[in-house]
């Protein structure tokens, strides 16, 4: 139980550390715990919000740190390394990895599984002038993202390999 809460908090501290050290021109910082998600869901009555409402009803928290920089190279791989290190634990599966040298982009999608149950998801995107960390804490079913497709900027027909299948199949990896 202690470990369950310790890891997300530690990751957030690291993500916050990046915010403090970087010269970002735009910072998006979203911290929503279960209580706030419950409150938000009460106000998600629009038809477009239905899928999102269903998804957040299961979550314990949503944490986003998005930093936008004026010039490329204002953050380095070393800034992100502590987060990568935490995502190397046995509970984490790296299900999608996009490394584009031409575009200088690295996008990773990680899921956390405990007893074959998905209990968290992290999206870490490093772009030349943008660094984004998204953590969905709770039982995220990858199929839930399919439900969200077409909304919130998520493309239609997106499918992320479920947790139990991720262990059997190789992760999606793109290197250019």
């Amino acid at each position, binding site marked *: 139980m202690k470990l369950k809460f310790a890891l997300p908090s530690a990751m957030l501290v690291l993500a916050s550390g990046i915010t403090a050290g970087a010269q970002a021109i735009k910072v998006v910082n*979203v911290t929503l715990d279960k209580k706030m998600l419950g*409150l938000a869901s*009460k*106000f998600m009555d629009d038809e477009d919000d239905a899928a*999102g409402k269903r998804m957040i009803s299961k979550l314990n928290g949503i944490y986003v740190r998005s930093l936008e920089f004026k010039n490329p190279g204002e953050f380095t791989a070393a800034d992100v390394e502590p987060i990568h290190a935490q995502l190397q634990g046995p509970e984490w599966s790296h299900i999608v990895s996009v490394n584009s040298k031409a575009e200088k982009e690295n996008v990773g999608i990680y899921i956390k599984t405990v007893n074959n149950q998905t209990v968290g998801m992290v999206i870490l*995107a490093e772009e030349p002038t943008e660094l*984004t960390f998204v953590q969905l804490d709770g039982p995220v079913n990858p199929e839930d993202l399919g439900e*969200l497709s077409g*909304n919130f900027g998520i493309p239609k027909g997106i499918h992320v390999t479920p947790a139990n299948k991720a262990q059997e199949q190789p992760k999606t990896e793109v290197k250019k």
Partner: protein
Amino acid sequence: MSDQSQEDRFKDERIEKALRTALRRQNPSEEFASRLLTRIEKGTQPEHTARSWWIFPRLGWAVAGVMCVAITIVSAKYEQHRREAEGQAARRQVLVALRIAGAKIQLAQSRVQQLSQH
């Protein structure tokens, strides 16, 4: 005239005499004139206003009751408004978070598609 009626007459006379004594004209005390003149000079009113609430105690209670109800209603409305604002802010944050997550998933998907096309 019977003894009874005579006795009644004496009784009436006694009562009348007692009333005359009680209601006889009296001159005010010597201090009264000086007190009155002092008050006129100062332009003060008799101390009456502070007592007015106690003169109408029911009105005082009614006003207090109305004020309590008004304060309760205003507090409830304020709390409702505050909760609604907080909820709407949380909803906006959820939408921002999902849009950012969606944008990054889209980025990953577009790179995967680019690879499959090559």
